Structures are given as structure tokens and as C-alpha cells.
């Protein structure tokens, strides 16, 4: 186990040493230094290189022994496994309390590697040093603008803390963060997890003021009970979204009883997640979307959802999606129907989904959103059919007639309006403290669309389909109910 101070040294170091910085741009020792330097890390950066050759404008030294003491808290180790014990001893002597080891050649590399890893952990304990990895891709921490990793990307700042047994999935989550704008606080790949594993990082996130949601990827679990205890403590404090890859290593059940034969290992894992209050996602994509939803939307107070759509079909499939969850496609209260009657043409659906059915004036949609989102019986809103006009505007702006025929004015009008609609939706959601999820495929097909922009500028996720928005909302309800049942 590691201390909070050690995790702070890892995520918010006063200075970083890259051990084994390379002049070759294809080497990890180059890439790690590059990524730290180019993403705005404000602390001091040092590097070692066997020949003391300058790398990326940094003067290097042959050994950490040659560096001043007390200037760095983290060493990012890219040196070969055989030299790492000396690197760590030198680092500890300079006051460094955390090490990220990108080096391979440990537990993943046969008996000899396992021995080396065992010795490394013993040494770390002797030195009072936290070791992350080995064989990991790195650590990212946006509060410190730290991108100490051997892969891209560097994500926008946000409230999601990522810990993963796979470094590549850390990258996947951060790529989603880059695309959606819903950002990351901390991200770390556990590598071989020699000293600390996923639940240890989540334990730090649980009390980390920079993090609101934990997002984890796990494959193997060595001690199921310890995992359950660790993750339960985190989920009691913050939402934990977890995706599990790979078949269970649990093996055969000792008892071939009838009940036992029905209970596959994955059902045990699933039940463990429910008991711990962990939100289990089934794909990486779902995991990110659900975590991003926890990070940007309040929990619904109840299951009652109002669907607002500018056209019928979207509402129909969204009603179907809601029917497959614990969410409730609420009946519209009479006073809400009356309020909407005052805003809409008589052909509107007068039912939920609230299909505006066209003919809106420029202020209709904000007025409808205000009536629906503020209504006390509405727990959550799904908003559909935004961005249609500005998508037409895009075609006109790119077409051969632009800007003649009044196209410049109408294109600008639609852009303003669509941006306004989704911006107002977010403002009303904030005021009411309710989740309001906007879904349109424009989020992926034409992400520059004004409606999509209005959502991302409000710091929220624009869902690429209504079924994905409904799923994310249903997972929020799952959390809300889990908490309510345990808090009486």
C-alpha cells in the first residue's frame, strides 16, 4: 500500500526526473520527456542520459546522483531493468518518493523477470518509495499539466480519474475525452501492478479534490475479497464506473452443485459490483460515456423522464429505449400540458415524448425547455433533434450559392439559434439541478455543429444517439437508487 503523500508525489510532483532520456525520437526515453515538456508541466524537469547529451533542449546528467536534492518528487524510469535498482536508490537519496516504471522485463518476462519485480518491490519498501508499474505507459495529471507517458494523447482537464490494468485503454479513455471535451483529472496505467493496483489508485481518487468520478479497467483480480473491500470504500464516496475485460481466471467451481452450475464466475463478479455500488459498463465506449455523464450531470432524484424532440421518429425510439430500463417515460401533468399548449401549435403530441411537430418560432424551444425542465415532477430530460437547421446551414455555407440569396444571414441565424437552444438547456439544467441529456448523431458526424458546440462549451457530453443517452441516464438512476437505499 502507498500513502496519500506518495500518490501526491506521483500526480502533483514539484519536479520530475526522466531517467534514461534518449536522443533518439523513437525511444520511450525521448517520448516521455517530449510529452512532459510539450504539455505545459510547470514544475522543474530533469533528465539523465548515459552520455549526458542534451535532449529536447534539456541539459542531461549521467546519473541522478548528479542532480540537486529536494527538487523533484517523481522519477519516470525508462532505463533497462538491470540498472533500475541503482536508479531508485539514487532517486530516493535526492528526496524522490514516487517512481513510474515504463521499463519492461519484469513480471511479464518469465521467472527471472518475476524475481526482479519482487526484488524491486522489496527495495521500494526499504526506500519508502511508491513504485507504479513496471511495464506501464505512464501517468497523466491535468491539475499539474503533467503528461508523463509514452503515448498520446494529453486530455483536456476534467473531473474523471482513470486507473487501468491496460495502458492502451487509458489512451482510449483520454482519446474520448479529447473528442468530447469532457476531461480527465488523473489517469494512470498500473502496468504489472507490482506494488499498487487499480483499487489503490481509486482509493486515492476517492479523497482527491480534483476527482469526482472514478473510471477503471480491470482484467485479472488476484484477491477478490481485497478488491471488493477496496472498491466498496471508493464507491461509498464517489461513482465508480468499471469495465472488466477477459474471462475470469477463477477456474472451476469446487462444488458441482446444481445452483453452482448456474452461477458462472461473471455473475459473481456482476453481483460483487452491484453489492459494492460499482457501475459496471460492458464496453470501453459505454464506460467513458457513463463516467462522463457522472462527471457532468447531477443524479436524477427519481425515474421520471420527459423526452423533448423536434420530430416524431426520434421520440418513438427513445421511448422504446426508456422502456428497457428502470427509467419511466412519465405521463405529462395537466399543468405542463397547459403550459406547452400556450407555446406550441395544436398539432404537438400533447403527450410524452413531447414532439414539437414543427412550426416553432425563434423563442419556442427555449420556452418549452424552460417549462419542462423546471416542472417539479420532471426528474430528467432527454432532448432530441437539435442542430438540424445549422446542419442545413453548413451545407449552404459550403455550397456554390453562399453568401448570396440571403444565405449568409440565414446560416448565421441558424447557428446562433442552435447554439442558443443547447446552451439554454444546460443553463436550465444547472438551475434546476436535473440531468438534461442532449443526443444527436451530429456529435460524431459533424461535431462542429452549433448545437453540439453549445453542449461541449457548457462542459457536457453530446450523446451520439438517444439510446446511449438513455443508457447513461439509467446508470445515473442506478447509482441514485443504490445511495438512497443505503442512506435510508
Amino acid at each position, binding site marked *: 500500500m502507498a500513502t496519500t503523500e506518495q500518490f501526491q508525489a506521483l500526480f502533483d510532483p514539484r519536479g520530475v526526473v526522466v531517467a534514461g532520456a534518449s536522443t533518439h525520437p523513437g525511444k520511450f526515453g525521448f517520448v516521455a520527456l517530449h510529452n512532459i515538456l510539450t504539455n505545459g508541466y510547470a514544475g522543474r524537469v530533469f533528465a539523465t542520459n548515459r552520455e549526458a547529451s542534451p535532449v529536447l533542449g534539456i541539459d542531461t546528467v549521467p546519473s541522478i546522483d548528479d542532480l540537486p536534492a529536494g527538487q523533484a518528487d517523481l522519477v519516470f524510469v525508462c532505463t533497462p531493468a538491470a540498472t533500475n535498482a541503482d536508479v531508485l536508490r539514487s532517486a530516493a537519496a535526492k528526496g524522490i518518493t514516487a517512481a513510474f516504471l515504463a521499463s519492461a522485463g519484469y513480471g511479464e518476462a518469465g521467472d527471472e523477470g518475476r524475481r526482479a519485480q519482487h526484488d524491486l518491490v522489496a527495495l521500494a519498501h526499504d526506500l519508502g518509495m511508491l513504485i507504479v508499474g513496471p511495464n506501464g505507459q505512464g501517468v497523466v495529471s491535468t491539475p499539474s499539466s503533467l503528461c508523463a507517458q509514452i503515448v498520446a494523447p494529453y486530455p483536456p482537464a476534467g473531473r474523471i480519474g482513470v486507473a487501468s490494468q491496460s495502458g492502451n485503454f487509458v489512451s482510449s479513455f483520454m482519446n474520448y475525452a479529447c473528442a468530447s471535451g469532457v476531461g480527465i483529472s488523473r489517469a494512470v496505467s498500473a502496468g504489472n501492478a507490482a506494488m499498487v493496483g487499480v483499487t489503490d489508485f481509486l482509493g486515492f481518487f476517492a479523497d482527491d479534490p480534483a476527482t469526482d468520478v472514478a473510471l477503471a479497467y480491470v482484467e485479472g483480480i488476484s484477491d477478490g475479497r481485497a478488491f471488493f473491500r477496496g472498491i466498496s470504500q471508493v464507491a461509498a464516496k464517489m461513482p465508480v464506473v468499471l469495465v472488466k475485460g477477459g474471462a*475470469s481466471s*477463477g477456474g472451476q*467451481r469446487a462444488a458441482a*452443485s446444481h*445452483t*453452482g452450475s*448456474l*452461477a458462472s464466475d461473471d455473475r459473481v463478479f456482476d*453481483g460483487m459490483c452491484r453489492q459494492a455500488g460499482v457501475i459496471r459498463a460492458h464496453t470501453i465506449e459505454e464506460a467513458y460515456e457513463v463516467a462522463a455523464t457522472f462527471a457532468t450531470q447531477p443524479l436524477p432524484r427519481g425515474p421520471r423522464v420527459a423526452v423533448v424532440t423536434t420530430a416524431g421518429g426520434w421520440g418513438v425510439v427513445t421511448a422504446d429505449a426508456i422502456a428497457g430500463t428502470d427509467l419511466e417515460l412519465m405521463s405529462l401533468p395537466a399543468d405542463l400540458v397547459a403550459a406547452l399548449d400556450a407555446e406550441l401549435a395544436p398539432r404537438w403530441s400533447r403527450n410524452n415524448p413531447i414532439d414539437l411537430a414543427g412550426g416553432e418560432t425563434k423563442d419556442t424551444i427555449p420556452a418549452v425547455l424552460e417549462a419542462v425542465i423546471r416542472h417539479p415532477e420532471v426528474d430528467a430530460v432527454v432532448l432530441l433533434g437539435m442542430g438540424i437547421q445549422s446542419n442545413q446551414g453548413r451545407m449552404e455555407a459550403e455550397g456554390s450559392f453562399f453568401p448570396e440569396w440571403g444565405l449568409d444571414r440565414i446560416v448565421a441565424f441558424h447557428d446562433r439559434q442552435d447554439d442558443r437552444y443547447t446552451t439554454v438547456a444546460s443553463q436550465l439544467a444547472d438551475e434546476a439541478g436535473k440531468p438534461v441529456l442532449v443526443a444527436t448523431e451530429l456529435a460524431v458526424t459533424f461535431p462542429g455543429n452549433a448545437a453540439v458546440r453549445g453542449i461541449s462549451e457548457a462542459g457536457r457530453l453530446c450523446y451520439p444517439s438517444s439510446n446511449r443517452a438513455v443508457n447513461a441516464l439509467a446508470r445515473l438512476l442506478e447509482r441514485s437508487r443504490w445511495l438512497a*437505499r443505503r442512506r435510508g
Partner: protein
Amino acid sequence: MPHSNPSLPTRTLSEVESKALLAGFGVPMPVERLAADPGAAAVAATEIGFPVVAKLCGDRIAHKTERGLVRLGLSDAGAVRDAAAELLDAATPEDGDVEVLVAPMVRGNRELIAGLADDPQFGMTVMLGIGGIFAEALADVAIRLVPIERVDAEEMIDELKTQALLGAFRGEPAVDRTRLTDILLGLSRAAIATPDLVSADLNPLIVVDGDPLAVDALVEVRV
């Protein structure tokens, strides 16, 4: 939490011992009698009230149904005497000491299953599932790690997909969720209090007028 170790030998308790162990933790069972001979079986059946079930019972008999050692719907003393005689004759020397268990014929349209199993990764778990002939096809089960709280047991019931089977059904009232919760909590307590316990099956739990009743029970312990 004890983990199963496949190298350690286990044994199954008899149905009577299994039921006695779990009844001690509040699992509801029908009133049953053990009879050493056909005459005693007929007396027991008369006291219980017809119709009854007769089963051959002994420490080493685990799979009664497969071996044809269960006789259902016995409606008078003569039928009980005949059935008991046949069951005692069917015993083999390997079965050890045997007796005939006489129990009321419990009827209900719905069957559930519940139990305990020692998971190699997570240790002792408690499960609840839809039972009956479609149990394996439906595979509708909910599992938690022992020990569970009341809220966990309630969520296990809610988690079953076949909720329609738990409501009012074919003229029978809805399943009493409080009693079902108590059974799951009882299993959890049994696992904690019995460190040698490896598995327990309540199969079936027949729902009688809304009340789940453990008609059969099998407990496996480390030797």
C-alpha cells in the same frame, strides 16, 4: 473468508441434517418425520396429513431424484407403507444407514432456488434464482458476497429478470419478499457461523400461497 480448496475432501450432509442446520438460521421447512420402517412411516404420514412425500434419507445419499428415491403424492397409509418398503429395499450397502423421510406434499406453481457457493476468487457467495424446469434455460440468478445486509437481499430479489413470477400469479398471492429476504439473510448467517460449509442448495424453494418453503436442502461441508 474461507476459500474453497479443491484438494480438501468434502462430504454432503443428509437431507435431514442439511435442513436442521439451515432451519437453525430461519430457513422455513415443512414439518417432516423420519421413520425407520414402513409402519412408522404410515403413522408419521397420518400425523402430518395426506397427501405426503416419502424419500429415502441417509448421509451418503445426495441425488435422490436421479435414483428414483422420492415418491410423491401418497394419499393414504397403505400407499405410504408400500412406498417406504420399496425405498428401503432400494438402498444399497454403499448408502450406509438409511431411513424414510415423510413430509407433506407441498404444492405451488412457482419454484425458486437459493444457496451458498464458495467462489474461488471471491469466497463464499449467496445466490437466489428462478427454479423449476426452466431454471437452467432462464439462468435468472442474482449473487452477492457473504455476508449480505438486508438491502443487498432486497436488491437480489429486484435483480431477477422474471419479476412477473414474483408478483400475484395464477390465483396465488405475490411472493412474500420479506420472507424471501429473511431466507437469504439466514443463508448468509449460516455461512458465517459454519466455517466448514462449502455449499448449500435450497432446491426447490416452493412458493406456497406466497410463502417460500424449502422442500429440499443439501449442505456440503469440509471433512
